[in-house]
């Protein structure tokens, strides 16, 4: 027989799950059209389970929709298995587009490869890795190119890069200068290049915190990849400074709002998590059984 304390804990945990599930509603939004393009919101650097992220690829796609993203790229380190799974499910759900990607990870550089069919090895110089990505008709973007990674990117590599992350969560603590400098150098060498904002999501609530505004002709993988190749993107760094083509920045003017939950749903979610946490803690910490047997009786049993 369970104790009253256990019954209350179970009720709290159950109520928390019910409230949490009831608050699992998705915003209904359509990407705006500016200057003849659809403005898609993308997070192009996301890690999932089967890699070092915590969520299943399909759960990532659903959470991305909640955060108002139209496109994500699943980019586990040096493999594309989870990205393929995510793309398979996303194509069958009302979820954002999922691009098959990889974070090609080498000691001296990290490179995001998008829309690839086979994993690219990081055991070669960055120019070779970029060439491998392009041979698969993919897109190559420098991942968080801080000063530490800068020596790997010579002029030859910069000429071939399609873009670089200019907004990334590490700039919350380190400031935006390092990524700004790299992007300025990239544009100097290459002319037009895709300005990319990515969350480098692994866990917690940062999915879509930094994002890329992609000016695509339609909502399709091919159109997104083409826009990236042409540098038709805008990203806002942590100080709110816009990067990308000035004409596109003028079209966008301000970041398209990131949808939040309506107040009632937000409070339901908060109540759900508090209730579930208290219920779980109660079940762990408090006595659960009511009837006590004596030590002697239990030994006889």
């Amino acid at each position, binding site marked *: 027989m369970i104790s009253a304390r*256990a019954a209350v804990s179970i009720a709290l*945990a159950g109520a*928390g799950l019910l409230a*949490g*599930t009831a*608050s*699992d509603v998705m915003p209904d939004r359509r990407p705006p059209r500016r200057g003849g393009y659809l403005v898609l919101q993308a997070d192009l650097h996301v890690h999932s389970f089967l*890699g*070092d992220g*915590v*969520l*299943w690829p399909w*759960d990532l796609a*659903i*959470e991305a929709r*909640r955060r108002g993203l139209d496109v994500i790229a699943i980019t*586990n*380190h040096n*493999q594309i298995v989870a990205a393929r799974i995510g793309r398979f499910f996303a194509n069958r759900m009302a979820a954002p587009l999922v691009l098959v990607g990889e*974070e090609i*990870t*080498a*000691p001296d550089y*990290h490179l995001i490869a998008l829309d690839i069919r086979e994993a690219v090895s990081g055991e070669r110089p960055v120019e070779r890795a970029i060439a491998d990505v392009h041979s698969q008709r993919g897109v190559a973007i420098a991942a*968080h190119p*801080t000063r*530490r990674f800068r020596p790997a990117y010579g002029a030859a590599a910069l000429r071939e890069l399609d873009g670089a992350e200019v907004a990334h*969560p*590490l700039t*919350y*603590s380190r400031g935006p200068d390092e990524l700004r400098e790299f992007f300025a150098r990239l544009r100097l060498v290459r002319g037009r290049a895709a300005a990319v904002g990515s*969350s480098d999501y692994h*866990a*917690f*609530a940062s999915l879509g*915190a930094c994002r890329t505004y992609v000016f695509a002709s339609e909502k399709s993988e091919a159109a997104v990849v083409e826009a990236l190749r042409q540098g038709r993107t805008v990203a806002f760094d*942590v100080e709110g400074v816009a990067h990308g083509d000035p004409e596109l920045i003028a079209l966008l003017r301000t970041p398209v709002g990131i949808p939040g939950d309506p107040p009632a749903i937000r409070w339901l*979610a*908060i109540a*759900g*998590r508090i209730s*579930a*946490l208290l219920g*779980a*803690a109660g*079940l*762990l*910490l*408090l*006595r*659960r*059984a009511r009837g*006590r*047997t*004596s*030590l002697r*009786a*239990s*030994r006889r*049993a």
Partner: protein
Amino acid sequence: MAVTDESPVRGSFWSDDVRVILRPGRTYAELAGHPGRGSFLLRPVSFALLIGLAIAISSSGRPTLRLVLGSAVAWSFVPALHAVSVALVTLTLARGRLRPGRSVDLYFMGLLPWSMWLLGIAALASSTPPAREAAVWSTMLFTAPAPFIWGRIVTFAFFRRALGLSRGRSLAAVALNLGIVWGAILAFFLLSGQLWPRIVGRG
């Protein structure tokens, strides 16, 4: 989140799990003499659900059934590795002392420090904006040694008092348990190419 306890002590306010982590030697000796009730799977499954709950709350700010169950399934290899390691030690080093199922049930009581740590991190992460997420990672890094060390002490007491192993064999069992659980997790991340970036740089 297991819903049974069978302590023969009268009038205790706290669960057996709490008593185990506060007085591991004495409580394990006492519980080992009790036949136990309920399925031995209850605590491992509860631990998996707790991981799922922590992931759902920290990722989405809400415990949806979809995220809780999905994440529990994804990360169920963690309690599975714990259960396998304890069953192996019971069958090889402590033959006949306890049934492997009972042994697994008692062992999982000692994971309470990790359970509370997970709930604490989930609560912190769900109330921290993305711009301050580095603070959550730092908190995780600096607080994880506490449940790790506490867990080792409780596990040693489990092998020593519940399974009745000698001091030397208990230490060997702790090392074996540590090797199986953390060795398998490290091997998974190394083989899948995910750990190397953590060693060589930010990723």
